[in-house]
């Protein structure tokens, strides 16, 4: 803006940004600093207090700040000190990952995925060719076939279980990744199907269905209460099992079975998140010119061809950011799993339960076990992962493009 120049402009800018900067420093930057520091200490429920004579503790822990000492609770227990060795908490979480056996498992799993990456690369390269194309389906089919073959030849399940034995970090992250990999595609497909149907012309009752299908989105803002309702549905005496009883069978005890409990969390979380996809896709569909479909029909294209050649490529720019965003929030899903299973069913003391995803694990470590040291180390590693994922997603989706000019 051409208004002011020089010092006056800077003072205005600083004045208007000051509240934001202050809030970010106090509630975002400072927690990250304190978190990182505590991850190097042995703070837990037996050692909750700071030793203010240690320079860094005195600087970072608010209880040590002179102005606030009066408000500080004087708790029992010993002061926490730096871990010896300094990376002790990280070692507990994932130290065994660096043994030859675990590294070999990691490499084997990587090799299994190689054909898929290869197929992706090859099909992209094929697309750029003008003639002599190898069909993309063939490339992908072959890639998937080889990947599945490798999965069994290299005995990947064994590698996975040996990786799971290296500590909580891999177990929890792997399980959460599995959750995201199942939940996001299903959500997308459900959203796509519903959006395609709702977008069809002269469909009587369209408005009703549109409103009805939108309801879970509203409910998702009080997710924890609705998740409790979902838990009721899948209890031993819940609706689902009563239907089983009427049909003449006995329903399983859903929430006591690791795989079924996982499935219940996925179903409930899809319920919360599909309207977002549905609405994004619906918006994108409405911006596709009808002439494209008419032209395709003249050329004799069927439903499938139109879907693959027109619809999907054209909604991609709108849907990709939504998919990336959903993946990142699905990775951080907390309420659904916490309310439905509480992270369980347990598989023994000291081992994360079957639905103990990243945030549920962190919550339990912090607020139930009070293992602050381990929990903060976990937090730091999750932060690094999310940070990289976000940077990558910004590149892929070009979300910040246009924000700078």
């Amino acid at each position, binding site marked *: *803006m051409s208004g002011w120049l020089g010092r006056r402009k800077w003072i205005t800018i600083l004045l*208007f940004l000051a509240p934001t900067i202050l809030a970010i420093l106090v509630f975002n*930057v400072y927690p990250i600093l304190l978190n990182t520091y505590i991850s190097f200490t042995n703070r837990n429920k037996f050692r909750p207090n700071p030793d203010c004579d240690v320079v860094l503790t005195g600087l970072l822990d*608010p209880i040590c700040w002179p102005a606030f000492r009066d408000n500080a609770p004087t708790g029992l227990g010993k002061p926490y000190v730096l871990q010896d060795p300094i990376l002790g908490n990280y070692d507990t979480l994932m130290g065994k990952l660096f043994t030859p056996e675990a590294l070999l498992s990691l490499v084997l799993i990587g090799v299994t995925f190689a054909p898929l990456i290869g197929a992706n690369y090859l099909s992209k390269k094929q697309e750029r060719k003008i003639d002599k194309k190898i069909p993309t389906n063939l490339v992908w089919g072959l890639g998937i076939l080889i990947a599945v073959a490798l999965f069994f030849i290299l005995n990947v399940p064994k590698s996975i279980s040996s990786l799971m034995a290296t500590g909580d970090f891999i177990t929890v992250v792997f399980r959460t990744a599995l959750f995201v990999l199942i939940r996001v595609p299903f959500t997308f497909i459900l959203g796509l199907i519903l959006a395609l149907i709702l977008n069809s012309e002269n469909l009587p009752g369209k408005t009703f269905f549109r409103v009805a299908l939108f309801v879970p989105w509203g409910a998702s803002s009080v997710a924890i209460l609705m998740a409790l*309702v979902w838990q009721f549905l899948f209890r031993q005496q819940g609706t689902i099992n009563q239907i089983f009883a009427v049909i003449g069978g006995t329903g399983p005890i859903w929430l006591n079975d690791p795989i079924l409990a996982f499935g219940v969390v996925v179903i409930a979380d899809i319920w919360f998140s599909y309207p977002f996809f549905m609405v994004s896709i619906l918006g994108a569909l409405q911006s596709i010119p009808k002439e494209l479909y008419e032209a395709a029909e003249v050329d004799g294209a069927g439903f499938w061809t139109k879907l693959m050649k027109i619809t999907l490529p054209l909604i991609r720019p709108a849907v990709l950011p939504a998919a990336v965003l959903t993946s990142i929030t699905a990775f951080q899903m907390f309420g659904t799993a916490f309310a439905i299973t509480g992270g369980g069913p347990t598989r023994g003391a000291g081992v994360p339960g079957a639905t103990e995803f990243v945030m549920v694990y962190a919550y339990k470590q912090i607020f139930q076990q009070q293992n602050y040291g381990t929990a903060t180390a976990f937090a730091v590693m999750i932060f690094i992962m999310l940070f990289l994922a976000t940077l990558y997603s910004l590149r892929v989706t070009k979300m910040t493009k246009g924000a*700078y000019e």
Partner: protein
Amino acid sequence: MKRKSKPIIRVLQYVILVIATLYALYPVWFAILASGRLGDRLYTLDLGGMFFPTEWTFENYRVMLFEKPFLTWLTNSLKVASITTVASLIVCTSAAFALSRFKFRGREFFLVFLLAISTFPGLLSLVAIAQLLTALGLYGKHAGLILAYTAGTIVFCTWNLKGYFDTIPIELEESAMLDGCSPVSAFFLIALPLAKPALAVTAILGFMSGWGDFVFASVLVPAPDSVKLAVPALYSLANSMSVPWGYFASGAVIVIIPTIIVYLAMNRYFEGGLTLGGVKG
């Protein structure tokens, strides 16, 4: 997609829609049914009662509204969420104004820095925030919670508003400045009224983040009953063995139904992809 759908396709479409609608509505419907069932009978033993209101009583609502401190919880939630909304709108509007209307060194960096810093999950910074609030003497008080919520909404809200402000042509303000307006008053007198829809949506989303939150409220304001917020209070009500489920269900319905209605009313704003569109810039 097709101009004239074949009957079989139409039927298939309706089958899918009906199943999806059952999936979408049943959990909410179940909560409503359970809220009208007497005592601790969350489940009736005949299947019909799981789908239709075979019995109905307002007893649960009466107990929740007049015998439990539920109204206090609701008032607390409303108060905290409203103040959060106002505070976050003020902070974000001024930041978004500076970021949208001034070109300065470090602007890009600041915007991306906001995004990057917000990838640190709120739940994980809760220990530090709780400690900080304890030191400030704000732990267990609404003021502390409001501060934490406001800070939590800043990144999304600033990005969203900045994105919308960018779409308002600056020429309008420039012509006002020719008439002697300062850039600040030009912005507030001319651009801000034009940004009403974006402000409204940002406000409602900000409100909802405080209204529906569980973790922050349950950790930062754990007790006593007189300061609790509705959502965490209902959650602990559901988890205590001695309390009938019907109470929880009626409380949950009172919280959930208005929330759903507000979202339905905003439906058309979402459809334009405003939430994402803002972030897209």
